[in-house]
């Protein structure tokens, strides 16, 4: 429970921290487009360098990123392995016994590994490490604002998201506390057969549900007491404003995108 750094905000003072959340969302989208268009060796290298640069700009210790990558390590290894062994191509790179590895397989494995890693790191930087959840939902609400003309309840969705995000850390903390309390009474989560293990979870899940419902109810009452309504035009305490910085970052990402496309077209060299 304690190692969840993926999806966490690290307060700081970097350029990225100061950006408007809407600009960060747009930047993240451009960045993701960059990740998916990079397919040649040169483009991937360029992407990797750009990602490292963004990570450095964020001012967050590299160790944090490495820890954030740990949960996806397995998926990463699996994808790379599957690509390496399963891709059928024309040129055999080497073979032993029944395993044949093709050059195309190696290319694919590298491509996927770099894409997944940069995708996770890049979106972490923009959307979670440098942006507080509240700012993120504010930005999302504002970006999706035009949809409310089509009677999509954008504000309500963003309110729900804000509340959900706000409660995740609380829920984790509470799970920790309840687990400790039951362990203190001799609960054992790590031995016995599957049935026994699932049964051992009941003393945690029941109090967790009870308190979550109770908390939801209390929050609803508290909001109603302050006459909260989602369907009226609500204003924000912090009004979002784009600054020069936001345009510079978004423009740089667009340049990155064009550069990657250009490299793909003009220098179509692959891993080998």
């Amino acid at each position: 429970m304690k190692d969840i750094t993926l999806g966490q905000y690290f307060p700081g003072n970097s350029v990225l921290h100061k950006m408007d959340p809407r600009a960060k969302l747009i930047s993240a989208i451009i960045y993701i487009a960059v990740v998916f268009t990079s397919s040649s060796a040169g483009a991937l290298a360029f992407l990797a360098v750009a990602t490292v640069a963004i990570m450095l700009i964020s001012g967050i210790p590299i160790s944090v990123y490495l820890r954030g990558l740990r949960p996806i390590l397995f998926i990463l290894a699996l994808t790379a392995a599957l690509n390496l062994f399963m891709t059928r191509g024309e040129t055999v790179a080497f073979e032993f016994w029944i395993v044949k590895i093709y050059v195309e397989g190696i290319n694919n494995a590298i491509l996927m590994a770099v894409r997944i890693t940069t995708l996770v790191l890049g979106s972490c930087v923009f959307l979670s490490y440098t942006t507080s959840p509240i700012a993120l939902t504010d930005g999302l609400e504002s970006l999706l604002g035009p949809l409310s003309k089509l009677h999509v309840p954008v504000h309500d969705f963003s309110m729900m998201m804000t509340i959900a995000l706000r409660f995740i850390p609380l829920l984790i903390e509470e799970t920790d506390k309840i687990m400790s309390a039951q362990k203190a009474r001799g609960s054992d989560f790590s031995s016995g057969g599957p049935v026994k293990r699932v049964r051992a979870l009941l003393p945690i899940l029941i109090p967790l549900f009870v308190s979550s419902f109770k908390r939801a109810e209390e929050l609803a009452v508290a909001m109603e007491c302050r006459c909260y309504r989602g369907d009226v035009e609500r204003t924000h305490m912090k009004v979002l404003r784009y600054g020069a910085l936001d345009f510079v970052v978004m423009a740089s990402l667009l340049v990155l995108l064009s550069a990657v496309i250009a490299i793909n077209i003009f220098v179509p060299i692959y891993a080998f």
Partner: protein
Amino acid sequence: MSEIKLENVTYTYGAKTPFEKRAVDGISLTFEDGKITGLIGHTGSGKSTLVQMLNGLLKPDSGHIYLGGADIWAEPKKLRLVRFRVGLVMQYPEYQLFDETVRADIAFGPKNMGLSPEEIDERVIESARFAGVDEKLLDKSPFELSGGQKRRAAIAGVMAMRPEALVLDEPAAGLDPAGRDAILSGIRTYSEKTGATVIIVSHSMEDMAVYCDDIAVLADGKLKMKGTREEVFRRRDELLAVGLGVPMITDIACELMTLGVALGGDIYTVGGVADAICDSAAANGGENR
């Protein structure tokens, strides 16, 4: 033998992140066998962190914890046995209740110990009595109880394991005066009947003065003082310096002493001070009345 001894124990939350926080910093301390020790300290001084290490819920970054002379982390597989011997009631333990009836919930600990049904029944009744849980409540759902009743049920749930050391994190916080006295005297009765070592975390100097033999004071994760309650409360100025105080009655007694009234003996409980004032008055031939 249920003495708990800490040797240079340190614990850090969120090590190597921007949120790093050393909650317990090099504490060496012995909780003596069969005594009731009060653990006091300002908010965030590391009390809850410290008590969670006593039964191995948290593993110290460095240092050792000995229970009856044996290091509890010597065999991590046997930690569960340590948890049966060191019963921990966490802060706000109400949320740990989960079973259909209060009786079943109190029985959760003993059941995990693998005791016989008769033994479990007996322990449930006994611990319900110690913690002041009314027998009529035993067959109700724990979710129907009031806050104070839930607290007692949770404490009974830990006492039912009949631990040789009982650790309670703010057992009386947020209860009415009658409720806190009932819980604290129940804890003392438990200690007297079973000879258990008891550690009580509390913010209330008055309660500490009445119920504890020894007192340990934490400040910013470090041990500031440890001694009998007389020794600790005598160091009033130092306590004030770390944001704590002494029982109000001790404050009054100290003020009286600076006014020249000679008070001897116990100046930590209302009864004690009353006796001391009478003695002093008698010694002066009634002049001070």
